[in-house]
């Protein structure tokens, strides 16, 4: 069987598992902008909440395009390098190699044609984004059909695409793409004399916006389009393929608080997914439940556990103005260590839980309390966007009598809660002070989270 045939079969098999909404989105991405006639412009916006496979939709559209077109190209743009890496991995998983797909980075040292990774720097004197590339590397970039890179680095892909007869633009992760970044990218199209056949936007408008001090720069490009065109309807992906249903319930509670237009439904394949079931298959060995940490936190049957930390100490300001809560950090670290010790597969592989928190000060605090082999298992919620983990522990830090919760109160930034909770696949443990977030503050999304009917509530001991 030829390589082409193998890829085609794989793509068709994967496509056959897509639901109708996903297929509809794929077809729309492959539409041309003018295909409905002169009076209509086709711009598919795919609203894909966590776990609904928006990147799969994007890469499936790319795959279908590659199977049907030997010329022309697609420029696949994401906000982060991580997302471009994920998209490239997804296409490689379908069988496409470096001759079809290349990822462009700003690191000139990073050059590996066989992996389809090319780094180049921008030369302000010549105005070229492909400075330092050899003739061979330039030729390669002109021939490869799919180029992935970040929006800020889009000049690299667009400069490489300029010799192609046709190109299409797909923008992934649009929650972090505000109108200026989007329009800056469009302006670069003109700079390289490109006239794309199609444009598409993929993302979840409720997820975290780009980090900015300016409220006017927080709305993403999809919000902006909706403001300009109130009657426009995006493609809405409703089925999620990531989370246990209890976690999905919590995520839906948070979507309600964020005024989402629709709610997620769990696909059968993940509805009852816990740490001991496929594909994780961990065994729970209660090695040392310890007197400080409640056993029920670890019980795999409780997919969603909320630990009330009202009895613990208060938050503090760290150098640089970030926040930390030593007691909560200690509890998060102990829970992470316990998860790591007590869950392992038949092959002896230990579970690596992920601790997420909104504050870099708390990240540092928790890392200092973790053993060296687990120190990398803690990061900020911002950094976790676009990723998924079997087991997530979230530390919200705040615990004060006034119910003050800093930027978590901000309408857009409070999507931190939504993003953090929706990273978990099989187990989610949330550490939050009920007193601060609910009794005093009554902050809508935390109330919704706390009152999720499938949540298992535990009180932390001082």
């Amino acid at each position, binding site marked *: 069987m030829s390589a082409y045939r193998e890829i085609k079969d794989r793509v068709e098999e994967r496509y056959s598992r897509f639901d109708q909404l996903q297929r*509809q989105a794929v077809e729309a991405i492959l539409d041309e902008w003018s295909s409905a006639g002169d009076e209509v412009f086709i711009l598919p916006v795919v609203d894909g909440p966590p776990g609904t496979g928006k990147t799969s939709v994007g890469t499936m559209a790319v795959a279908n395009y590659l199977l049907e077109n030997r010329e022309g190209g697609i420029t696949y743009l994401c906000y982060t390098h991580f997302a471009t890496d994920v998209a490239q991995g997804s296409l490689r998983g379908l069988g496409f190699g470096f001759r079809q797909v290349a990822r462009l980075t700003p690191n000139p040292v990073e050059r590996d044609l066989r992996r389809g990774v090319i780094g180049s720097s921008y030369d302000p*004197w010549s105005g070229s984004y492909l400075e330092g590339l050899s003739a061979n590397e330039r030729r390669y970039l002109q021939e490869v059909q799919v180029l992935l890179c970040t929006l800020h680095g889009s000049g690299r892909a667009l400069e490489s695409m300029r010799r192609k007869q046709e190109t299409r633009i797909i923008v992934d992760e649009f929650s972090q793409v505000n109108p200026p970044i989007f329009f800056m990218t469009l302006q670069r199209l003109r700079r390289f004399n490109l006239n794309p056949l199609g*444009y598409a936007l993929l993302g979840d408008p409720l997820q975290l916006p780009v980090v900015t001090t*300016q409220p006017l*720069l927080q709305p993403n490009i999809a919000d902006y389009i909706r403001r300009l065109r109130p009657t426009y309807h995006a*493609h809405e992906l409703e089925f999620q393929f990531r989370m246990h249903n209890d976690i999905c319930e919590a995520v839906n509670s948070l979507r309600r608080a964020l005024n989402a237009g629709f709610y997620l439904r769990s696909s059968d394949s993940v509805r009852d997914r816990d740490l001991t079931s496929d594909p994780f298959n961990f065994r729970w060995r209660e090695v040392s439940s310890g007197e400080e940490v409640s056993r029920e936190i670890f019980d795999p049957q409780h997919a969603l556990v909320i630990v009330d930390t009202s009895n613990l100490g208060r938050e503090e300001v760290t150098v640089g103005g970030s926040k930390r809560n030593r007691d909560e950090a200690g509890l998060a670290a102990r829970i992470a260590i316990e998860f790591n010790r007590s869950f392992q597969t038949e092959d002896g592989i230990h579970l690596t839980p992920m601790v997420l928190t909104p504050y870099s000060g708390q990240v540092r605090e928790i890392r200092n309390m973790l053993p060296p082999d687990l120190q990398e298992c803690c990061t900020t919620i911002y950094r976790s966007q676009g990723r998924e983990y079997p087991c997530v522990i979230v530390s919200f830090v705040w615990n004060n009598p006034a119910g003050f919760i800093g930027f978590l109160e901000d309408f857009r930034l409070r999507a931190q809660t939504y993003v953090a909770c929706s990273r978990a696949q099989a187990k989610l443990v949330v550490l939050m002070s009920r007193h601060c977030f609910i009794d005093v503050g009554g902050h809508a999304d935390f109330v919704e989270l706390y009152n999720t009917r499938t949540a298992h509530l535990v009180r932390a001991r001082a």
Partner: protein
Amino acid sequence: MKNMSERIPISQWRAPEGEVLEGNVFPSGQPPFYPFPTVSDVITASFCPRAIFQRVLHGVNTDISASRGGGLRTKGLGTRFHEFIAYLKTSIAEGDLTPPRSLAELMSLFRLFVRDWEGADNLWRFYLQDWGNRKFEELRQIIPNARTYFETTAASLNVRFNYEGEEYEYPLEGIIDELDLDGERIIERTIRGRPGDDRPPAQEAYQAWLLWKILCSIDRNNRPEELRNVDFTVFNLIVETPFENFDVETNNPDFERQSLDAYTWIPDITTDWRAEAEARRSSACGFEPDFSCPFSIDCYGRIWQYPEARPRMRRSFREFYRPLLWEIMWTRDLLEYQLLAFPSNILREMGILFSGRVASISRDGREVEIEAQRDDASYVSVFSRHEGVGRYTLIFGTPSLGQRVEASFSQSNEDRLIMRIAGRGVPISQRTLILSGGSGAFFESKPWFLNRLAQYGLFRLQFVGRGRRETAMADSLVQLMESLFGQKALRRERNERLSRDQRPS
């Protein structure tokens, strides 16, 4: 300058104070302080208020001295001219090169330096050989270990300007091309000017004077140790063109007045919508385009007939320019105020500045090994690897006076950090850096320039279009604009089927 109305000097510059300066205020919206101007900002504002408007709000990063007067348009000629001379002088002082004795020798060194850069022929033919013909003797006289520093950043919160008996203090930051301590001079290098000129190009003379003003206002305690006792007030200011060296008078009331005017535009444009109209009225070219001005393409760009929705598009874009500027102020400008306002131990406590010691510099000048406090090294290493924060500015000297070098985190080993130097044409070595007992410092580089690129991208998109209906109809970018801002319908797919109640259950 034409049409310049009388400007009232700013009596007190609004710098960040208290909790804002200490970083204890959640940054949001309009900053409660004025920008921290650079020398380029002040020169641009002085050259033309409309040009500084373009620079500050639309991200137009044109160098007013780059192509004026119908000269050669290859980008970077002036910068490469300076970089090569810096490389040449440094290498001679370090004993790596012997001074060239002929144009042929100079040319071969130049070719090695620029390799296949496209502007090399023009730079050599029109500028460098003239410069070389004048400089063989000077190059021969370079003494080993000469105390000459290139690309030195000077910054002060209180640069003093005097005019008509009044004294004003404003912040200012700039980069000195060449600081020659042994010769007691600062040199501003340019490719502008012509053979036989009897005076220096005006912008460069003004630039050298502004840089000297900064140097004179830096408190001795804020200088690197080896520069504490240097009396900058006696320094000579030199503008060096390929064809001539010019002295610049330090006592210059015109420059004083010019600066006070220039400073008034920067806060007005930052804070007040009405300043746009005022800047237009006061533009250097009046209302007639002056196509020799490097800003003319941005001030008088052609407006195409399509997209027809352009007016709405422009109105919509306008709401973004100022927030993008304010974002820059909260990141770049506030940091600059903080670096100059606090001593390094407080900056470290604030989590802004890491201190260290330069352990070694690689032979090619591309890597610096820094010995940092173990905590800091671990913090930098972990956050660089996992949080994507990998770019730093290394400071050799002090924030007020020293070299600032962009670098990216490469690797770490306990308390040692290897930083890779990025995008610097002038080479670094132990001798070319201002190293007070080997000490150095570094801070995280925030990518504020991306906001400037976004400003410029938005601004240039305003000019995109087509003149004929047929070509406009085939242009997807124009049609996208028509559908977002005009009458054209916008749809998610060819046939919008499957309303929510028709979806699978």
